[in-house]
C-alpha cells in the first residue's frame, strides 16, 4: 500500500542517508548559529555586553558566546560604546582584519549616532566608518535589547544569498 509521507521531519527509513535542502539554508543555518562576536567595548555599553555574556542573559543560547579578541576569528563586531575620532581608525582597521562574511552591531546611542556627545572629539555614529547591520537604541541598552539585535541579525543572515555570493567570490 502506498501512502503519502505525512511526516514533517527527517525520517531515515523513508529518505535514507540523504537530506535535500538549499545550499543557502544550510550555509546560513551554520552562520546564524555560530556567530562569534568581536567585542569592541569602548565605554559603559561594554558592561551591558558583559552582562549579556553572563549566566542570566546567556548569549550562548544563540551560539554567540565565544567572544574572540582576535578579529581573525570573529564574525560579528559589536561596537559597544563611544567611538572617538582618535579610536575610529583603529575600529576600522579591526573591521578590515575580520574575515568575510562579517557583520556589525552598533550597540547604544553613542555607537549609533554619537549619542549625547555632540562634540569635537566624538565620531557621530560608527556607520561613518564601518557598515552597520543592526542599531540598538538605549543608553546603555538593556541586555535583552542586545539579544534582540542578535536575533534580528540572525534573521537578516538567514535571508542572505550566501551560496551565490560564495560562487561569485
Amino acid at each position, binding site marked *: 500500500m502506498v501512502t503519502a509521507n505525512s511526516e514533517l521531519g527527517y525520517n531515515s527509513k523513508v529518505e535514507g542517508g540523504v537530506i535535500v535542502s538549499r545550499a543557502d539554508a544550510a550555509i546560513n543555518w551554520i552562520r546564524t548559529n555560530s556567530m562569534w562576536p568581536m567585542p569592541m567595548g569602548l565605554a559603559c555599553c561594554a558592561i551591558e555586553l558583559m552582562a549579556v555574556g553572563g549566566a542570566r542573559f546567556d548569549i550562548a543560547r544563540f551560539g554567540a558566546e565565544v567572544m574572540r579578541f582576535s578579529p581573525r576569528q570573529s564574525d560579528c563586531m559589536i561596537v559597544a560604546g563611544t567611538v572617538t*575620532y582618535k579610536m*575610529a*581608525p583603529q575600529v576600522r*582597521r579591526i573591521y578590515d582584519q575580520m574575515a568575510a562574511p562579517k557583520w556589525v552591531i552598533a550597540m547604544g546611542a553613542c555607537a549609533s549616532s554619537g549619542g549625547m556627545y*555632540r*562634540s*569635537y572629539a566624538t*565620531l557621530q555614529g560608527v556607520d*561613518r*566608518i564601518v557598515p552597520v547591520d543592526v542599531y540598538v537604541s538605549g543608553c546603555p541598552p538593556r541586555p535583552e535589547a542586545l539579544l534582540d539585535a542578535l536575533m534580528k541579525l540572525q534573521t537578516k543572515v538567514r535571508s542572505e544569498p550566501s551560496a551565490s555570493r560564495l560562487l561569485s567570490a
Partner: protein
Amino acid sequence: MSADALTALKAKFPQATDRASADHPAVNVPLGDLVAALGFLRDEWAFDLLMDVTAIDWAEGAAPRFTVVYHLLSTTRAGSYVRVAANCAGTDAEPTAPSIVSLWPGANWHERECFDMFGIKFEGHPDLRRILMWDGYPFYPLRKEFPLAGIETELPVADIQEETGTRVIAAPMMGGPFVASAGEMNLTDAEPRAKDESWADRATRPDQTPLRQVKD
C-alpha cells in the same frame, strides 16, 4: 591651617597676593616664583599631594590671556587644601609656564592634558605630547575661540579617511546646550532642554506651522 600656609608663603614671596576664592584659600604668585612657591608649600607645609593642574582662558584679547592653577592637598594635615595661580608668559598663540614635574612626578599627565586642551607649553616637561586628542590635531579645544561644536578637520589616519570618506566634522547641538530645570515640577518639564527652543515642537519656528494644534 591652609590660611597659615598662605600667610607664610606671602611673607616669603612678597609679590604673592591673595586670590578671590569661594571655598579654599588661594593665592596669586608671579610666574617666576611659581616653582619655588609650590616647592615651599610642599616641603615646609606638607602639601604633599598635587590634586590638579588646570588653566583658565580669560578671553581672546585679554591680558593676561591664560592663567595656570594648581590645587594642593596635604594628606598629613586634615582639611588643608590650597590653590596657587600664576599668569602665563609667552604669546597668546603659545603661552608658557614652568613645568613642576620635578616637584611632583604626577604633574606629568596633568600638564600634558593642559597642553592638549589650552596649548600651554610647560617648559622643562620631559615628554610634552597631547594626551587626549591625537598627535597632529591642529586645535586646542578648551580655548575660547574654539567653537563648542568643533571644527572640521582631517581624521588621524589618512588612508582610513580616504577609504571611508569620513572627516572630523563640526557637530552643532540642536539648540543646545541642554539645561535641566530644578524645583517642584513634573518630570517632563524638568527634562534637560535647550534654552533656545526655536526648533522644538513646543515652540513654532517662524517658517513652520504648529505641530500640535491645541483645540479650544
